[in-house]
């Protein structure tokens, strides 16, 4: 039970029920990346607008479980206003953290920190990762 309570933390539920920055914009200045989780049908699209190496906006849309949808919302809140360099470091460490790999604990992951509970659920790591992977791809595309 403890593991599960650690998984479904309040922040996660809050973002699941009240997602921030949701809905895509028909604006070509955004980089759009769409990712699916082949093993469970989660389906997430991330839009990122970058100006002068700054994430000026980040949006999401999609469907899936609470971990998947909320992590997309948390991602957008975390990233808006960050420099692309900083964003890359945060996303990289977040992805390592949820996959239970060695990561730099000194980096402040802000709200995204709560996804640490996912480490106990290897089958759910992908759920917590796909939005962030899509974001990483968007950065790489830029």
């Amino acid at each position, binding site marked *: *039970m403890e*593991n*599960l*309570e650690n*998984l*479904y933390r*309040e922040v996660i*539920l*809050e973002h699941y*029920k009240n997602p921030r920055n949701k809905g895509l914009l028909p604006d070509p200045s955004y980089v759009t990346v769409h990712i699916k989780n082949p093993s*469970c*049908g*989660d389906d997430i699209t991330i839009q990122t607008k970058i100006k002068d190496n700054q994430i000026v906006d980040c949006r999401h849309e999609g*469907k*899936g*479980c*609470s*971990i*998947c949808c909320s992590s997309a919302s948390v991602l957008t809140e975390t990233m808006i206003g960050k420099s692309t360099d900083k964003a890359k470091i945060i996303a990289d460490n977040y992805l390592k953290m949820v996959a239970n790999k060695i990561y730099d604990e000194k980096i402040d992951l802000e709200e995204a920190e709560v996804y640490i509970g996912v480490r106990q*659920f290897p*089958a*759910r790591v992908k*759920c917590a990762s796909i939005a962030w992977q899509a974001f990483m791809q968007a950065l790489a595309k830029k």
Partner: protein
Amino acid sequence: MEQNIWRADFPQITEKDMIYLDSAASSLKPNSVIMAVTHYDHDLSANIHRGVYKEAYEATFLYEETREKVARFINAIPEEIVFTRGATAALNLVALSYGLKNIHPGDEIIVSELEHHSSLLPWQNVALKTGAKLVYVPLDSEGRITIANFESVLSDHTKVVALTYISNVLGYITPIAEIITLAHAKKAITVIDAAQAIEHMPVDVKTLKCDFLAFSGHKMLGPTGIGILYGKQEYLEIMEPIEVGGDMNDNVNKYDAEWKDSPYKFEAGTMPIASAIGLGTAIDYWQEHNIMAMEDHVRRLRKYTYTQIKKIPGITIYNPTSETGLIAFNIDGVHAHDASSYFAEHNVCLRAGHHCAQLVMKWLNIEACLRASLFFYNTFADCDRFIDATKNAVKFFHKMGF
């Protein structure tokens, strides 16, 4: 304690605390099957059909004996039994070999929204490639294929009827014998997906009169990597192989080649020998036990479990009237993947997702659902653990704010 005369044969559940309710995805394997595979790997380990030495001969014998066992099991002759990688490969073989050659623009292929993707997509592909029309049997209000609804789409243009015998999500049994008779009256061929049926009822292809029938080893106590295509000899004989290569040919010349007779012409290269031999042992298991008694037990488990689950507020069940061991459900407001982690934490193994049947999900108007599948080695104690877990899951997710 309640007696389950079969359970002791399954080390996966007797040797650890696991409530296995995912047999519709893959059944557990009895000790005898595990040992048959090990026997081949450990003692024989030789290729078949060409070896004169003892091990090669025994392997060949066991492989071909399995073909005979499968034939007896479904009342066919060995020549009508093709080994494949699984039900999916078997259904594709019919579509690619028979379908692409014999279906023409304007022809109609009847399928249903209950189909597993492995039964649907091969024919969707044939329709797209040949210009034939894919026609869906309308499901009734429960989600069933009925004879009346089937008749409403059957026409003189119908060339293929490709339907599931038992739905892998809702567990409904299709009135397939009647449908086959009706289809034959229109000279349509019938391709039956028996992947969920073969382990739940006696299947007799001569009584059914189906033209093709497919199933997988791993859902009927056998190993992964092996499946069966049954085909009437007259069809197998005229069908071209899709894969060509070693062992399936007679004469090979530089610019052309001749094939062996069916079923050998469909088995190119080294086949899954160990898995085939394991399937033979799985069939021995079915022959040594009473499938009707097993299925009776499943129905009692299903009835008990359904009655209890139905009482839990906050649960939606999608197949209340199912006659086989499946319960398709969701916890209201909780995505199936969130829910399944809860069950997994309590060692209750069930499946979450679209179950390779997205059209059923769309028909139910849901994204995904949970599926508990009961099998003969399950006990009432298993059901109680599942029922308790469901009750507690509802409470848990409520507490967490879902």
